[in-house]
């Protein structure tokens, strides 16, 4: 059982940071609803406010790790230009996608959208985390700030979902795969 370094980093980026962000995002929506809905218990302990801040800050860290690994580690492998005359484009995912009419739009719409929309996620969730930490217990006195935090979490989740969907589809059609081979389990 083995994996290449490029596949490994793609796994860390998508299945590690990205998927964890999406899971945490749905948790954040539930957490915010439970903490601030009309049915929420009055006088929740201060720990629940602290937990919300830490939870959103962790999501922000995940979002930054996802976009930074995606943009600066994986994207250069994805967009590498093949030398003239290259026939086998497997090591050049963008060129591979663009070489077939059936897959061109995965790059022209999928990757072009993914690479930009993904950057909205850390911006939105960092601000949501900042507001949750800064106002903590006082957030209960600021309904408009709560609306903004809810809105930012939901939009960040939507943007992360779009980026994640295209990430998976791009990897199915033209996987980033190369570099050194890491042997996970070796047969005796």
């Amino acid at each position, binding site marked *: 059982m083995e994996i290449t370094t490029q596949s490994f980093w793609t796994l860390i980026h998508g299945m590690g940071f990205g998927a964890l962000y999406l899971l945490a995002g749905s948790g954040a929506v539930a957490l915010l609803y439970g903490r601030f809905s009309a049915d929420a218990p009055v006088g929740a302990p201060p720990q629940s406010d602290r937990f919300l801040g830490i939870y959103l800050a962790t999501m922000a860290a995940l979002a930054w790790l996802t*976009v930074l690994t995606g*943009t*600066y580690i994986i*994207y*250069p492998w994805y*967009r590498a230009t093949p030398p003239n005359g290259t026939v086998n484009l497997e090591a050049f995912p963008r060129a591979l996608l663009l070489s077939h009419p059936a897959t061109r739009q995965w790059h*022209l*719409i999928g990757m*072009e*959208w993914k*690479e*930009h*929309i993904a*950057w*909205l996620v850390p*911006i*939105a969730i*960092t*601000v949501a985390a*900042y*507001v949750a930490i*800064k*106002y903590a217990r*006082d957030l209960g*006195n*600021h309904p*408009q*700030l709560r*609306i*903004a935090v809810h*809105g*930012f979490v939901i*939009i960040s989740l*939507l*943007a992360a979902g*779009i980026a994640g969907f295209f990430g998976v589809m791009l990897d199915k059609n033209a996987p980033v795969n190369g570099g050194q081979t890491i042997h996970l389990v070796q047969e005796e």
Partner: protein
Amino acid sequence: MTTDVIVSRDSSVMPNGSGAAAILSAGIGSLAVAVFAIAADKSSSVKNLFVFYKPTGALSGETSVAVLLWLTVWAILNWQWRSRSISLTRINVIALVLLGLSVLLTFPPLGDLF
């Protein structure tokens, strides 16, 4: 804009100015990502200007400048509003509309309309 959104300077409740600054700056920063992406797509000279790190191409500059702009706007607004209470309804609407617009404008078929 700063004068007509200020509600009060003193209140027993923690002023919401810092929150408002963060919220509005996020909307502006997000829109900047979309605007810079469209600008780089339309003009090869802008695209070249945004190539901060060659392996990543213009994406490196588009996102770095947008993040820098977001943080700068945040710092300035926070400095202006930190001890004030702001009418947040309008700030929220503007920020969420800017975020929504950014989601739409980063969609290539819509960005290509410009």
